[in-house]
């Protein structure tokens, strides 16, 4: 690339263009109630047809650009989720599905649950809903692509880093005897 400065920028622009047009997703269930998973399948079906946007569901996390995580992350799935995330090639993005993926939802604070995907791996996009509708899922993937574009323009994910460190919910000690609802 350095030999041809012009072609370097051209090839980078081409790569960036391709990246936002070809989001391949992989779905991982970390203890959800299945509703989110069913809705993800529904996006691939004739009614919603996610392939219009180049979205393809891939079985292997190695092929995926975007990992869709459903469920509040049970303690047993925690290590497995991290392993899946590590298996994905860079650049990789994570979408946390639904209320459970964002915060644990109705399962927040239960003893076998990690309270959301972000306590385990970094999340780029959260989708609201319980479960999110298929069109919202497609919308989230598209939002993730916009974010990807922004990242590419700014040269990385650094700009999104929060200035203040928030306390990690996963480590917050719970009041003994009381399960937060």
């Amino acid at each position, binding site marked *: 690339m350095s030999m041809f400065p012009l072609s370097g920028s051209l090839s980078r622009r081409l790569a960036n263009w391709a990246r936002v*047009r*070809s989001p391949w997703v992989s779905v991982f269930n970390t203890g959800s109630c299945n509703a989110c998973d069913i809705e993800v399948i529904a996006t691939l079906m*004739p009614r919603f047809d996610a*392939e219009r946007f180049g979205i393809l569901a891939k079985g*292997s996390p190695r092929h995926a650009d975007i990992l869709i995580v459903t469920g509040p992350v049970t303690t047993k799935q925690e290590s497995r989720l991290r392993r899946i995330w590590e298996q994905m090639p860079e650049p990789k993005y994570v979408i946390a599905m639904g209320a459970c993926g964002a915060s644990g939802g109705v399962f927040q604070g239960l003893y076998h649950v990690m309270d959301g995907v972000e306590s385990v791996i970094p999340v780029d996009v959260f989708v609201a809903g319980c479960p999110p509708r298929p069109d919202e899922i497609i919308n989230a993937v598209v939002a993730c692509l916009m974010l990807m574009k922004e990242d590419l323009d700014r040269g990385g994910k650094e700009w999104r880093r929060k200035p203040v460190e928030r306390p990690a919910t996963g480590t917050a000690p719970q009041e003994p005897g009381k399960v937060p609802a």
Partner: protein
Amino acid sequence: MEPLLLGIYILLFPGFLFLFAYAFLLQYLDRKIAARMQQRVGPPLLQPFADFIKMLGKEVIDPAGVDRKAFDAAPVVALAAAMTAYLYIPIVGGSPFAFQGDLVLVLYLLTLPTIALFLLGWLSRNVFSSVGGVRAVTMLFIYEVPFFLALLMPALMAGSWSISEIALWQQEHGWFALLQPIGFVVGLIGLQAKLERQPFDIPEAETEIVAGPWTELTGRRLALMHLTMQVMLVAGSGLIAALFLGGPLLPWNISPAWLATIAGFLMFLGKTLVILVILASLKVATGRIRIDQLNDIGWKYLASATILQVGIVLLMDYIRVGT
């Protein structure tokens, strides 16, 4: 041919540049036709190209304990084999590389990607990949015999082992698709199996083994393997078009020569597209069969149909020689 012209032929048109563009177009049409038949909208035009570029830009991960060099080399070998095979397919008139026996060479080159896939699966050290690789090779043994026999029949009848000459022969005597309908059908089914498309996507059956030999491939390896399969689609349908549908040659003579060239090229496009539509419909209308069922179909029906075709061809030859 002059070296310059030859270079243009290999690199630009109708060589590799055209090949890649056409491969992406066929891939797009394939997905679009499938989507329309399933009442979906389907992908945008540049989707296969975007997929390819994106995969090139992704991180390459070496699974633990793999032989990195072999892992890098296998997709390159596969792609090189498929591209070389393509050069012997007549696209605008006969191929400049044509020689007696290039048919056998092309068939051999088209087998290499499957072997590469098996190697990749074997090297991955992942159960899904190994199972997929073994399945790919098992399938190869099943469909390869009828496929070869079916594709060699035109050579037998035309009395030449050169694809371009076989295409030329049809200009005078009529298409082999009409003379050898059984061979044509077997050739199409064999091509479908070779490309590992439904109902023969057994090695990469997503419900069963994630992505088979593809599971551990990332970045440019994945991109090259995908491109290989797409190039195989072009080369394979071009081969069938040349052997059974008269290739780029018209049944009558056109002058001047440049007009004939353009017409021939359009013929090539049209015929490969027809073959693609047939293959895509087959893909949509069927589910995946089990490898034991493929075994049944392959040996019981395909093989015996091809042997019947061989008998007919020999009989026709005998009658013709006799008269």
